[in-house]
């Protein structure tokens, strides 16, 4: 019994890590072609990501938004809904939390933080209600609608932050700072690791339990496996579609809210370097499992954190990280005998 459980984790880790390995190979080619030593660079990256408490904290901080964007994608994918709209929810949720954070009177943290987070979740969930209903009622492909909503959300928040919500006297496009009571406390000062990491990880763990032990988790998994079978046994796939989409939006919004309250402390235009899309890659790597999401988020966080630092210590441009990220996304879905074909866009 024990063996079976551990072997599942082993296989999971392997399928999650394999595309990473391939991406690293590609990255090595790029590094070598531009006159760098791949092994030395990678060694440096591993050191930067995991060498010592401070660095691990930085890795975990970088992983924090990814935990929830990955979770947002996983929740939807599991039910067969190909939602790529987490990026938009991240922006809107972040803005909502920032607004609550700077516009509220100086209420205590225990009130302010839940309020701000609730706002971010609500906004995110409401944002994806439309595509969910469109898919359930009219069969409109959710990939395109959620993809479009990403861009709309970015532009919308960009307008708000450059206009009505712009901080007085601010040069760049940012809202005012949130009040200190709205900030998520640091876990390990002076590192920037904040409570948001614990919150996010808890949500991922909760998802794991939800998937395994709850009635709705069971139903949404079944719908993802076979909508036709689900219908025949009395489960309504359409209701699940909408529910999962909204849940996905709530989580995406929370991701943005936590990022604002815990790290950035205000909303800035362009404050997400594609967290939402990375989340999609994470969910795919993880095959929608909670353990996989956590593992993949940390790996991507390591990549991002190390990348930011290696530029300081070597002349390797930090964009190598982006190359690796893109390559991981591609290899995550390529089928060399493993992989997930998943959704195909119709004409």
């Amino acid at each position, binding site marked *: 019994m024990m063996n079976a459980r551990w072997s599942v984790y082993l296989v999971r880790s392997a399928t999650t890590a394999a595309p990473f390995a391939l991406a690293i190979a590609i990255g090595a080619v790029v590094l070598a072609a531009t006159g760098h030593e791949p092994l030395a660079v990678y060694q440096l990256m591993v050191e930067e990501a995991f060498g010592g408490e401070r660095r691990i904290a930085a890795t975990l901080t970088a992983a924090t938004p990814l935990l929830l964007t990955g979770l947002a994608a996983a929740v939807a994918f599991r039910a067969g809904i190909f939602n790529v709209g987490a990026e938009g929810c991240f922006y809107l949720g972040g803005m909502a939390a920032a607004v609550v954070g700077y516009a509220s009177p100086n209420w205590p943290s225990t009130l302010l933080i839940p309020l701000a987070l609730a706002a971010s979740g609500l906004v995110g969930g409401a944002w994806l209600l439309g595509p969910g209903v469109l898919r359930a009622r009219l069969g409109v492909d959710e990939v395109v609608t959620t993809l479009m909503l990403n861009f709309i959300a970015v532009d919308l928040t960009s307008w708000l932050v450059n206009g009505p919500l712009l901080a007085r006297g601010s040069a760049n496009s940012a809202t005012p700072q949130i009040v200190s009571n709205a900030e998520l406390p640091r876990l390990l000062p002076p590192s920037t690791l904040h409570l948001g990491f614990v919150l996010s990880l808890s949500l991922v763990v909760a998802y794991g339990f939800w998937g395994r*032990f709850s*009635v*709705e988790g069971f139903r949404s*998994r079944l719908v993802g496996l076979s909508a036709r*079978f689900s*219908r*025949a*046994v009395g489960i*309504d796939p359409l209701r699940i579609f909408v529910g999962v989409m909204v849940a996905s939006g709530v989580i995406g919004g929370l991701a943005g809210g936590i990022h604002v309250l815990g790290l950035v402390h205000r909303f800035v235009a362009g404050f997400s370097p594609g967290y939402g899309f990375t989340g999609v890659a994470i969910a795919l790597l993880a095959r929608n499992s909670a353990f996989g999401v956590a593992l993949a988020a940390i790996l991507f966080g390591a990549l991002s954190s190390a990348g930011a630092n290696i530029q300081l210590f070597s002349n390797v441009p930090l964009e190598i990280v982006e190359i690796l990220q893109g390559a991981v996304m591609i290899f995550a879905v390529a089928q060399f005998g493993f992989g997930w074909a998943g959704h195909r866009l119709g*004409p």
Partner: protein
Amino acid sequence: MTEMARVEVRLGARRVTRAFGSVLANDRVDLSVAPTTIHAVVGGNGAGKSTLMRILQGVDRPDEGSVILNDRPVRLTGPADAYARGIGMVHQEFMLAPPLTLLENLVLAREPVGFGGLIDWRAAQAEADRLAKIAGVTIDWRLRVVDAPVHVRQALEILRLLYRGADVLILDEPTAVLAPAQIEDLLALMRKLKAEGRTILFISHKLEEVMSVADKITIMRAGRVVETTTPARTSLPELARAMVGESIEAATVEARALPSEKLLFRARGLVARDAMGVQRLGPVDLDIFAGEIVGVAGVSGNGQDELVGSAAGLTHPAEGTIDFAGGDMTRASTSHFRAAGVGYLSADRGEEGLCLTASIRDNFIAGRERDHAFSRFGVLQLRAIAVEAERALTRLSVRYGRLSDPASSLSGGNQQRLAIAREVDREPKLLVAAQPTRGVDIAGTAFIHSLIAAFRDRGGAVLLISESLDEILALSDRIIGLYNGRIVGELNRREASVDRVGRMMLGQKAA
């Protein structure tokens, strides 16, 4: 064409044998299709017709025996090879590109080329008209396939075979998709093509059409050729009997002693359409009482799927009313039906009756996860579920490894038992059972029959839809015949016989 006529067997099979695992799909099959004739192959589900066609087309290869072409044995390397030798096939699922026009589909990959390498549409149209004339059909070539009615698409498929130079046309259940009015047109087309010098091999289980148009008939059952005959030397009832076989000695189930008084299911004026919007069922009136098994006898394609869909609550009827257990269920959802006490055994075990990638436990519990016994406050009670699953599966002698194994790990018979376990364990009032023993061996079939009978004895009602006449006769208390979507007769167990039921299946009054 005249050279072909001197050949005795244009296309055939000699002692073709093909096995899939332990299942013998074709068992020493002999088939001889003479040139410029129409040759029909008939048989029920699982008779081996599709396997034989795939072998003749080169898609599959026999384990033993050989395909015969122009009196000589050949080895076909694939459908392209068969095409090159003049053999073409029209499948049940058409191979067409929906947004393209009929003309574009006709010439695809063999486009006539004109000036500057561009497609010469005039030449294409001329050729299309010529072929349409040969076949005696009128087609609006500018219509897109997606807008064209089914029978036009089928005509196109046939014409495309001619366009590509096939002189042997294999048609797989060509009338299955047609409305009765269009079937005559298709038969006329077949006769015309034969007169023009083509050879036609077609699969069907619509015996009337076979008798009407075929020159020779080969009857298959359980992978073997039972008989080869001609319409002149046989009759409809004989064909039917040859197709379904004599009643086997398998244990027949005791008929219900007394008719029950309690009316469970009542359909009035029920009309149902298929996925394409074509009306396939109705108007139909049907009553089902508690404690009886009502068997629906009929060749598939006569409205059974739509009847099943309406009775199990999968689709809304287009017209009419359905009452169940005293409540109006006409617009009710599937879960409402199930909550009211309807159980459903799907004919499509792999895609609808079970979720093969999910675990055995999940398949058992699917749809019942909210039940009080299995969950509390939205949390699954895994222990209770496992206990109940084990109990139910043991009761039905399902052979499995672990509850967490995927359902695909079970054999066909055990998979069916798993589906039955789920449905019957819910203790429904009415069980809609479609092809309950399809793909199950004799022992398994007998067991499933006893399960259904026991369910009936406990007071449940069963609506049994089966293509197997044996099964209908063995189990039903009442037998109704379904033909072209209408109920053509009703017999009770005592009155029923293969002859009379067979006649009902063919739309004739049970004399």
